């Protein structure tokens, strides 16, 4: 039916142990207002939980938020778990307290963008719409 159209589905997840989810919630809300269906899974997610949620929810986009500094530890494991489940066509982005010098490593891992504090949320929405593989 043309009365419903496919909305972009986004998983917003926070791997690791830091409990600061303000940023993740702000991004989830901005994407909601941008017309996306956002699955928000809350704090303290393991890489396995994130990948499993991405599989079950068949999302188009996965956004990871992290403030603990463990991104180079945890993000590769998320990517591995996604691959293990054959979820290899999602758009990946991340945000939080992530030093500039780690950007290259994250891009190599498959993260198309790294958003830092001060980012305009509209830029994140725009990024998702421009890069989503639909």
């Amino acid at each position, binding site marked *: *039916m*043309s*009365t*419903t*159209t*496919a*909305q972009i*589905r986004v998983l917003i997840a926070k791997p690791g142990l830091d409990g600061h989810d303000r940023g993740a919630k702000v991004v*989830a*809300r901005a*994407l*909601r*207002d*941008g*017309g*996306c*269906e*956002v*699955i*928000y*899974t*809350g704090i303290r997610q393991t890489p*396995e*939980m994130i990948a*499993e*949620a991405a*599989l*079950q*929810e*068949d999302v188009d986009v996965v956004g990871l938020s992290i403030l603990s500094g463990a991104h180079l530890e945890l993000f590769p494991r998320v990517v591995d778990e996604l691959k293990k*489940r*054959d*979820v290899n066509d999602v758009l990946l982005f991340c945000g939080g307290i992530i030093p500039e010098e780690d950007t290259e490593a994250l891009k190599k891992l498959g993260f198309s963008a790294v958003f830092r504090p001060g980012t305009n949320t509209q830029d994140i929405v725009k990024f998702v719409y421009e890069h989503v593989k639909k």
Partner: protein
Amino acid sequence: MDDLVERFLAKDRRALARIISRVENETAEGREYLRALYPHSGKTHILGVTGGAGSGKSTLTGALAGAYRKREKTVGIVCVDPSSPFTKGAILGDRIRMQDLALDPGVYVRSMAGRGALGGLAPSISDVVVVMDAFGFDIVIIETIGAGQDEVEIAGTAMTTILVNNPGTGDDIQALKAGIIEIADVLVVNKADHPGADILVSQLQALLSLSPAGSRRPPILKTIATKGEGMDALISAVEDHHAHLQSSGTLAKHREDDARRQVLAIARQILLERIRESTPAPELEALVARVAERSLDPHTAAEELTAAVTG
């Protein structure tokens, strides 16, 4: 069609997730999958969990699924959260309450946005439930959007409807009102460790005592979903209801009613599409304008509109 159906029938969860998306988006491709999978459905006991926003539906659904897992039953869960009427966006946050099940291979949780449907469900919920049913879960649980007094559609799709109530949310006049309370097959008083739980239980009992003689009175159960308390009793109540459905012949009638409702709803959608296709937008707008300025009444306008396709 690709190899998704084959993979689906071989219990590949990625194929399940993919097919649900296509069905949810109501694409022609989605209808093909549905056609292929429909014969495999019809075996699962479909439960509905409904109740007000914040009543503990998600937590209860998670706890109930956990209790079923202890009995080695597989569980598929569909949770619906509302879409924005303005942007069509949604925050789907029910998984947060079901973290214990996150890595259990016997559980599959799918969040759906309401996408403007009325009644606390989503437009394609029946089709998505057919897909989950065909996948072979022992139990499928549908969790509705936070429901108020009148969101009764869940009872059409679910065989057993669990209504989640909370203490402190109104007096016995609320319970006396028509609407959602009438569709409950099992009444749950969740957050039973909060003050007023026993009062609510007795109010509900008093209300049910007014039911006509001979009618089935839903059991009233106290639960504390956050602690998993009351789940064994809840499963027993659900099983009792299922046995009642079978012995009374109500299950067969439920299937028929659900099938009739689905067929008519789809037929209505098809007709609406045909009308839209057969009437160019300017023509429709001209008709609408005449109704708005009161030179034509809406009934006559609708008859003119439908004449083209029903001719």
